[in-house]
């Protein structure tokens, strides 16, 4: 089986810190894998390694069967990324930001199409032509989601994507992820939000000090059990 995301003995050593200790991970199409862990556990490093933003010390990361280090640009055709804080360009409107990022990914959309992506992501129609500098954090996050969706990526890499979103927006986001998953998109989401992970994820992995210490299918756990499990590893 070809996994859309795969890590083989992936290790990352920074000058003074071992950030990732031989990660082995496979994520299949349609799977939503949630990485839980404290700050500094290695979640963001994992995402950066899949994006090719940092080089592994040893081991390899693969996207759609292609080794990231050898194909840093090619693999990005399959990926979309949403960071924790989508800042965007404050002097451009939401529509202009989306048009820019879509064109960089090779997509040229008409204005109504762009508007459609933005409103589908939950951005109010009246806001799409306003400069992003006037947006709230949640609104910017929605533009980030629209950017990812408009790229039609097979893999979504999400680094705390619901941080700062209100419950309604978070819920809409979960719904969107489920929809994309149903279409075969593989999702790797780093999060602190245990309940969101349980609600939307197909599997959860718990990271501690650069190590994936446990992986469970979410169907086998309820929210309390997951929280208990998480707290067990954190102590």
């Amino acid at each position, binding site marked *: 089986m070809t996994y859309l995301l795969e890590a083989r003995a992936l290790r990352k050593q920074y000058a003074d810190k071992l950030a990732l200790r031989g990660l082995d991970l496979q994520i299949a199409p349609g799977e939503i894998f949630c990485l839980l862990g404290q700050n500094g556990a290695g979640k963001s490093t994992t995402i950066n390694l899949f994006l090719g*933003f940092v080089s592994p010390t040893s081991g390899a990361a693969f996207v759609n069967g292609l080794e990231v280090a050898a194909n840093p*640009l090619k693999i990005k055709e399959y990926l979309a990324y949403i960071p*924790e804080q989508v800042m965007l360009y404050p*002097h451009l409107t939401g529509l202009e930001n989306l048009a820019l990022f879509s064109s*960089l990914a090779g997509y040229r959309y008409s204005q109504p199409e762009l508007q459609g992506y933005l409103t589908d992501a939950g951005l109010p129609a009246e806001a799409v032509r306003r400069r992003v500098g006037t947006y709230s954090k949640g609104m910017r996050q929605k533009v980030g989601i629209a950017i990812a969706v408009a790229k039609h990526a097979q893999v979504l890499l999400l680094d705390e994507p619901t941080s700062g979103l209100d419950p309604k927006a978070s819920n809409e986001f979960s719904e969107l992820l489920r929809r994309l998953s149903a279409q075969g998109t593989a999702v790797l989401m780093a999060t602190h939000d245990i309940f969101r992970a349980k609600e939307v994820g197909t599997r959860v992995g718990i990271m501690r000090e650069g190590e994936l210490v446990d992986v469970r299918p979410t169907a086998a756990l309820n929210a309390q059990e997951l929280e208990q499990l998480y707290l067990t590893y954190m102590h």
Partner: protein
Amino acid sequence: MIHSIAQKEFVSTLRDRRFVVLSGLVLALLLAATLVGRASYRSLQQERELAQGTVNEQFRNQPARHPHRVAHYGSFAFRPKSGLSLLDAGVDTYTGSVVYLEAHQQNSVNFSQAQQSGSLIRFGEMTVAFVLQLLVPLLIIFLCFGAFTQERETGMLKLLLSQGVSLRQVAWGKIRGLSQAVALVVAPALGLAAALLFTGEEFAAGPDLLLRLLLFGLSYALYFFLFVVGSVVVSARQASSRAALVTLLGLWILGCIILPKATANLGASLYPTTTKAQMDAQVHEQAQHGINGHDPHDQRAAALKAALLKQYGVDSEEKLPVSVAGLQMAAGEAYSAKVYQQHFAALNATYQRQNRLSDWAGLLNPYQAIRPLSMGLAGSDFAHYVHFQQAAEAYRYMLVQRLNHLQAGMGYGDKERRLDARTWRELPVFAYHAPTLGWAWPHLLLPLAALLLWGVGLSWLGLRLISTTSVT
């Protein structure tokens, strides 16, 4: 991809209020400097044309006189301003603009603007070149210091790169977009200058001026491109916007203030010039070895007289068909002119060595490459000044020798006679023709090559550095 990033950078910059305020100030300064430069050009040019016309008329309208009296009456050569000096006054402000042309001696060019201005002139003039060379780079630094650091600090760099763009493409897009924004600030001033130059009747518009203006604009475009690329590279290599700004300002101070001063001081120490008093003494001492036409007891004058008597096969001066005094004057003039030429040439060579050192420093510092290039294209550099000085001397020598030969042709007893007033109207007046770009070109090759090397080198090395920069 590069186009999209460039467009985003351009639009974002234009919508940034800080840019609007800063660029508005720089543009206002540029436009003001252009208009002030034009007004200054116009008044100085009118003054000089009027003065040149007046002295020419006075010379031509002399009454019947002895030619040597006319030679001592002399004339003046006023240096016309070059059209592009309204953009870059170069050394014009500090070099003189008028030279007194008389028999027996080559005077230096006097009456510089700086001599006649207040002490504020020491702080430099607010010319277009000053704004372009020093202030626009500052604007570029303020515009570009956060080009990469801000993207990194806000996480936007990762978002950009996740779309499949390379760091190199991001860099080129930013360089292009930011360059467009800079062009928007500078182009109106250069456009205004071009309009003034080609519509104002006081300017001698022609292909040479057009070519000079074109190269002037292209040279500055390359200079600004260097600052944009350099600022983007520094921004990419620094960890924070603050560090990038401090580094860039430090480089600006080093390149635009410290290095030029240090090079000038080094040049003056390595190639010291003689003082005017020293040179006058040396010239006077050496001129003693030539014929003194005013001294009847001069031995060399006596020898020339003897040679003439022998040449014409006569035994007394009275029987000679030529005036001995006139030919003695001519020989004396030829000798003293040679002495002056040697000393002026040595002095100019020293100045040129000093300037050359600064020109070579252009390989280390783009500011020291654009400065001589800009002055040279504007026709206000030292080489153009020397060209005028030599043209004035050539005219002086021709005039004085012509008068000496008129005297020689008067025969024996010329001192008691005068030539008709019409004689002076047949003599040519001083009319200076500024050199063409083709003449100036060899002087401009080194700074131009330095600027081009900077452009290629910085683009190549800078983009290599950017492509290995950290994303996180």
